[in-house]
């Protein structure tokens, strides 16, 4: 067991444990904070996979953007002071059974499949290559995504606007 493995297990553990907390937390604020750790762990896994840029983006977008957005959502839809911030569950038992089986099948599948892999290359920094790709090969999709973000922003603002606001 070398250092790489150790770090992998560490991040994997952080990810999964915090994810378990996320899905089981009664208090939504706890869940949101646990989610932050999950995202962080995932970012670490990215780093281990040699995707440094993606890892940075993960941290910035998820933790800095989406998570904050979620927290705003929590705060806007709940009275913080009340105990109503705890959330219930539905169909816990059948879901647990089904998803347990599903998880077992899925994990077994992932683990036991002999994937056609190639020897891992030595990781190099990917930021420059990604930038090149984004403005050459994937430029159309890139720009479409920009438009999508614009539309999403306008749409979100429109949907969330209170009635009567002009």
């Amino acid at each position, binding site marked *: 067991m070398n250092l790489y493995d150790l770090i992998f297990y560490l991040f994997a553990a952080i990810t999964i444990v915090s994810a378990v907390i996320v899905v089981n937390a009664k208090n939504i604020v706890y869940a949101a904070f646990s989610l932050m750790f999950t995202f962080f762990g995932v970012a670490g896994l990215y780093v281990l996979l040699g995707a440094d840029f993606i890892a940075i983006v993960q941290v910035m977008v998820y933790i800095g953007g989406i998570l904050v957005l979620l927290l705003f959502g929590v705060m806007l*839809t709940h009275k913080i002071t009340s105990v109503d911030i705890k959330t219930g569950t539905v169909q816990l038992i059948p879901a647990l059974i089904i998803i347990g089986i599903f998880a077992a099948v899925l994990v077994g599948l992932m683990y036991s499949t002999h994937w056609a892999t190639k020897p891992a290359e030595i990781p190099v920094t990917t930021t420059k290559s990604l930038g090149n790709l984004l403005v050459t090969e994937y430029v159309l999709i890139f720009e479409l995504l920009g438009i999508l973000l614009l539309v*999403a922003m306008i749409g*979100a603002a429109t949907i969330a606007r209170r009635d009567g606001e002009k």
Partner: protein
Amino acid sequence: MESIGLNHFLVVSAILFSLGIYAVVTRKNAIMVLMGIELILNSANINFVAFSRYGNSGLGGQITALFVIILAAAEAAIALAIVLNLYKTFAHVNIDEIDKLNS
């Protein structure tokens, strides 16, 4: 114990995926459901990046992961707007009680 390979990442991704599904399926609160969706998206992203790395097929996987993150951001924004609207309408965000079309 063998050394870390593709399988390990995929297993982590699978567990994360299952947990995300679990959250989507069981939680009442719409925001918790959204969190589950984020977990699922993250697990997918791990897969993309992992395949990109071990498949040694260039940076296509990472690009896709990047796009997924962008879409997730857009989705989160729209979804939270919808959640706010729900709250305005029903004064709560419990999706199991929002069944007007069922009756």
